[in-house]
């Protein structure tokens, strides 16, 4: 099973990651739960509103899942889309599955229903933290074409574990947004290497913004998810204070850096440009002791 996660859509990901025939979809396409707001604007709707949700199992363990479809409006969150994810998380608080798996691929709030989308993202954030407080690990996987941005980039970091591939991107404001607001001198959105050094999987792993980095294959994501299911770490004030120390130290240590390369150099990578060339195993090995956190 070496199929690319990056190249696949939401349903193919669910199909490949979950145990065979274990997926049961909630509000499937034939339920026709679509966005009324897109219809008002005479825009095409999707029968799943861009997110596939349900239950299934991975390695025999029952999990709940929500998979965003980047192919529909860039995975953007509208009222229905967001409420589906909230439903999955609230159900997890009630039913205690082994984990909730969020396959995120999104630019954030869907502008055509901006207010509903923003509130929905906020509800998702609170629901993720409620699930964790109920002892259900929330595992986020990021490795699709659209990355994970906007408010959902914040929501992702509310989860217990983030798994990324090198191709995955995670941030708040996307490069285009910053370039539009501040000019190309601030952030050249077309400079793919720069974007990768800023929000890409390897950078996020070195910085401690993601927990696990995997090669771009379904098998690798699946393995990492299985390994993360038992990480239902107690979500405590002490853990939060430790996170506070880590984030404070990060600003002190890297706050003056101009480029991802400067951070990597500071972390002990004598040749930061070589990082891009390392395959995933080599990279993970070499990153031992040269990672923040």
């Amino acid at each position, binding site marked *: 099973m070496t199929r690319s996660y990056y190249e696949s859509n939401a349903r193919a990901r669910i199909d490949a990651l979950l145990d065979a025939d274990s997926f049961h979809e*909630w*509000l499937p396409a034939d339920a026709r*739960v679509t966005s*009324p*707001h897109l219809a*008002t*604007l005479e825009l095409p709707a999707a029968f799943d509103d861009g997110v596939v*949700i349900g239950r299934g199992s991975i390695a025999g363990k029952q999990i709940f899942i929500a998979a965003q479809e980047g192919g529909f409006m860039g995975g953007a969150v509208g*009222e*229905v889309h*967001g*409420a*589906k994810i*909230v*439903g999955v998380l*609230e*159900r997890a608080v009630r039913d205690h599955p082994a984990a909730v798996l969020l396959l995120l691929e999104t630019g954030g709030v869907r*502008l*055509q*229903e*901006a*207010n*509903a*989308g*923003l*509130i929905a993202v*906020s*509800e998702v954030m*609170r629901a993720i*933290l409620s699930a964790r*407080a109920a002892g259900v690990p929330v595992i986020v996987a990021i490795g699709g074409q659209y990355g994970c941005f*906007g*408010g959902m*980039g*914040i*929501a*992702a*970091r*509310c989860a217990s574990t983030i798994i990324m591939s090198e191709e995955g991107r995670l941030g*708040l*404001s996307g490069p285009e*947004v*910053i370039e539009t607001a*501040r000019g190309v001198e*601030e*952030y050249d959105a077309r400079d793919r290497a720069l974007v990768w*050094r*800023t929000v890409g999987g390897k950078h*996020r792993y070195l910085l401690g*913004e993601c927990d696990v980095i995997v090669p771009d294959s379904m098998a690798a994501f699946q393995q990492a998810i299985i390994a993360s299911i038992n990480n239902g770490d107690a979500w405590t*004030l002490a853990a*939060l204070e430790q*996170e*506070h120390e880590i*984030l404070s130290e*990060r600003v002190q240590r*890297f*706050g003056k*850096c*101009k480029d991802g390369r400067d951070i990597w150099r500071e972390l002990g990578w004598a040749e930061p440009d070589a990082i891009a060339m390392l395959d995933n195993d080599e990279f993970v090995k070499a990153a031992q002791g040269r990672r923040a956190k």
Partner: protein
Amino acid sequence: MEWRKVADQLFPAGHQVRQDGDLLLGEGHCGERIVAVIGTTNHAEVGVELALAMAAAVIEVIRMHPERPILFLVDTSGQRLRHRDEMLGLNGYMAHLAKCVEMARRWDHPIISLVYEQALSGGFLANGMMADVCASLPEAEIRVMGLPAMARVTRISEERLTQLSVSSPVFAPGAKNYLAMGGLDELWEGDLSACLTKALEHVDATDHRRKRGLERGGRLLADSVVKRVLSSA
């Protein structure tokens, strides 16, 4: 409204709220209670430092002042739009702040937020929108994006968006729209001190937003979609 005026009106019995750059910190007296105040001003762009400073303030309240209510005074033009902040993981700092607020709630601190000037997207998600009671002055500006920018991105004319926004609260800026959608619990007008006192009396830790959106007719589907997921096979 200028933050000092807001603080004076909220706490006629006195307050010690101080401004440090874009950050507001201090406490105010509301009846018998002391309320911790954490906020921003100058339409602050929330970058990593500001998010961290607010998070530190929340943690300090949890550690030092059990069950003390926290009031967020919100004035933000959004997350800081800088390459450097993105590189440092601004989303992680925002999430950290949101987690601190959630932790405060779980440690029995009532959390109130008041949008007194501006609240835009990312800057609002991590604190104001995490509150038990999220309030706004009626004239405050709350939005994801203004209509001209939205017209550019969505390729729908501004005229058409303006026309549609009369009947739908779903995308146009404004506190009233957020109220209708349940994103805001209430608008505070007149005696702000009385509004705060009342809010402190009826806080609870449940997220009621989608129910409010349904009751107020501004967000009709969210609640039923969640319920359908909960009752699915």
